[in-house]
């Protein structure tokens, strides 16, 4: 099957994630959209691994997953901390420098 379809799907998913990051204001949803963008990039890595005939792309996708897992842990802890001090998970409320 033509690998272009996979790359196009990856581009569409990445753009949807970008829309979410720009539009949504709940910090958790913004974070989930970042995860969607990482996943879209992974799909491109796996597809290109297949066209190049080596497994390097799959190894890279594997490392992306590991880094994403670590990032989620720290990011969610930060969101929890902001929520504890401000009682809100909205990114609009965390504008300390504006006050």
């Amino acid at each position, binding site marked *: *099957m033509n*690998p272009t*379809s*996979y*790359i*196009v*799907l990856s*581009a*569409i*998913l*990445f*753009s*949807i994630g970008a*829309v*979410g990051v*720009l*539009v*949504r*204001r*709940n910090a*958790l*949803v913004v974070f*989930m*959209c970042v*995860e*969607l963008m990482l*996943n879209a990039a*992974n*799909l491109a890595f*796996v597809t290109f*691994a*297949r*066209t*190049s*005939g*080596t*497994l390097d792309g*799959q*190894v890279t*996708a*594997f*490392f992306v*997953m*590991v*880094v*994403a*897992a*670590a990032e*989620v*842990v*720290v990011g*969610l*802890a*930060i*969101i*929890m*901390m902001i*929520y504890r001090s401000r009682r809100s*998970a*909205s990114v609009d409320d965390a504008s300390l420098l504006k006050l």
Partner: protein
Amino acid sequence: MSGEAVAFWIIAPITVLGGIGLVASRKAVHSALWLAVTMIGLAVLYVTQDAPFLGVVQVIVYTGAVMMLFLFVIMLVGVDASDSLIETLKGQRVAAILAAGGFAFVLVAAVTRAVIADPVPAEELNAGGNVEGLAELIFTDYLFAFEVTSALLITAAVGALVLALAPRVVAKRSQRELATERFRPVDGDYSQAAGLPPPGVLARHNAVGTPALLPDGTPAEASYSRVLRAREELEAGEEDEQ
């Protein structure tokens, strides 16, 4: 049409639908569930692209661990928290959608014009087995990156621990202090020395939310649970039953 193409044209719309649902749902829980749909769809696409190990890892790490973590935090932060629809910056939503649409258009235009090599057949890509091939690469060419990953994971674990630990605002009261407070009250009121009246009216209810009744039939204020009073989940008393 090959089996792979059939799978792709079934799964691809589902993943895109999941992505749109993620962005469009107002409640964070719904967003998380839509994202889970997308991630499982992507796992299937990995498997159809001769990456069975990554497909399994995708299900275990993303839909298993990461999404569970997200759902835990959503439960802690409050399920009802939904976005307000008021725009802080005027026209930001339209501008964002236009920008991302243009970005997608440019990407798709570039990709469809590019010459991409035909995929290598699975028996050539995974000549010695998929997991074996990945393991060989990780423990030879990518060994340093793999070692650094362990440092990253331990840093993330310690960082999350430090960030999530809430410092105590007031010192914890010891058992001795509690006993002193009860038997040597500052206001000289010894009526609680024998303990507070327990809640629950055994004749009709045995629930914590039901207050104890005094001899004249009015609910005993002291029998209310402190937690339930704060949550305003108490039953409306039983005085009308007299």
